C-alpha cells in the first residue's frame, strides 16, 4: 500500500516537472503592435475577435454591409507585419499577426484559404469606420 502511494507521488512529480519544462520551452508570442487605434479594446479583441468577424462576414456577404469596423480586410490592413526586407509577411510565416498567436494557442484557422493574408497596394483601404 505504501509503495503504491510513493509510486503515485513520484509519478505526479515527474509529470509536473515535464509540464514545467515543456512550458519553459514555448516562448510567449511576440505580438507586433499595429499603428493607430483598434476598433475595440485589446482585451475585448483577444477574447471576442472571432465573434466579431463571424458576425460581420454574414452581414457583408448576405446584406452587402461593408463597414470597416470588424471587417476582416481592415484587420489585415492595420495588422500587416513587414519582414526585414520591408515586404509583408504571409501566413506561412510565424511572424504574421494572426499566425503568431494561433500557433501558440494551437488553433488552426482556414480564413486564408480564400482571404488575402496581406494588404495590397491596389486595395481600397476602407476608412469609413461607422462612427
Amino acid at each position, binding site marked *: 500500500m505504501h509503495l503504491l502511494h510513493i509510486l503515485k507521488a513520484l509519478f505526479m512529480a515527474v509529470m509536473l516537472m515535464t509540464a514545467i519544462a515543456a512550458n519553459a520551452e514555448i516562448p510567449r508570442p511576440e505580438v507586433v503592435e499595429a499603428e493607430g487605434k483598434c476598433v475595440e479594446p485589446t482585451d475585448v479583441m483577444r477574447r471576442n475577435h472571432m465573434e466579431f468577424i463571424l458576425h460581420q462576414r454574414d452581414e457583408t456577404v448576405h446584406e452587402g454591409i461593408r463597414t470597416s469596423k470588424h471587417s476582416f480586410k481592415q484587420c489585415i490592413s492595420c495588422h500587416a507585419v513587414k519582414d526585414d526586407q520591408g515586404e509583408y509577411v504571409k501566413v506561412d510565416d510565424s511572424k504574421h499577426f494572426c499566425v503568431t498567436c494561433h500557433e501558440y494557442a494551437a488553433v488552426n484557422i482556414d480564413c486564408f484559404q480564400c482571404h488575402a493574408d496581406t494588404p495590397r497596394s491596389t*486595395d481600397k483601404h476602407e476608412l469609413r469606420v*461607422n462612427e
Partner: protein
Amino acid sequence: MNKSTMKNNDALVDKKRRAILGGTTAAIAGMAIAPGIFLTETAQARPVDQPVSSKTRWGILINTNNCNDCNDCVTACQNENGWGAGSSDEKNSRPDQKAQWIRTVKVTNKETGYAKTLPMMCQHCESPPCVDVCPTGASFKREDGIVLVDKHICIGCRYCMMACPYKARSFIHEKLTDQLSYAPRGIGTVESCTMCVHRVDNGENPACVDACSDSMIFGDLNDPDSNISRELAKHGGTQIRADLRLNPGVRYQGLNV
C-alpha cells in the same frame, strides 16, 4: 490595365466615393443643380451600414451588335477578381477545370449562317436553379437580385454547377495564394460572376461594364428611369433560355435573328 493606372484609378474612385458616401445631408443638399433638381444618383446611394433591399434589382444589358470579339470584358473580370491568366493560380488544373467567371460564346443560326459572339456569365436569375439545389444554403440570391456563393458555407458538392443551365459556375480544385482582398476565393468551393458585388456596393459599375461601355449597360431593372430600363423599354432585350422562365438579370440585344 497596368498596375499604376489601376492604383491611380483606385485613388480617384476612393476620393470620389468618400466625398459621396461620407457627405452629410448638407453636402447632398448642396449638390442640387437648381432649386428642386438633384443629382438623383447621389441621393439614391445606399448608406454603407444599411442592408441591400429588394427595391433594387441589378441587371446588365449587353448589346451584341457592338460586340467585336475583343475579350476585354473577360480580361477586365480577371484583373478585377484575380482569376485566370495573370494569376498564379490553378497550375495543375485542366483548361476545362479552371475558373471561368465570364467567357465569350459564339452562337450561329445554322439556317442563315448569322453568327454572333456574346459574353456569357452568371445570369443572376430571379428564380435561380443553383439556389434551389444547394444543400447548405451557400448558394443564395441577395435581396437586390445578385446571385452569390457564400464560400464560408459551401461544401463543394457542385450540385449548383449541374443545375445551372448557363454553365456559369466553376470549382476550385487546388490551393490558391495571392487572392485579392475584395475577391476571396479558395480550394473546395464553387464560384461564379458576383456582378462585382464589392464595386456595386460602393456605387460603381461591374468591371466588365466599365471595360466595355459601348455594349454593356449596368443598372437597376426596377427603376424605370435607369439607363438600362429606358434602353429595354425602347429597344427590348432577349433573355437566354427564356423558356426556362428563370427571368435572368442579364439581358441581350441583337440575338433575335
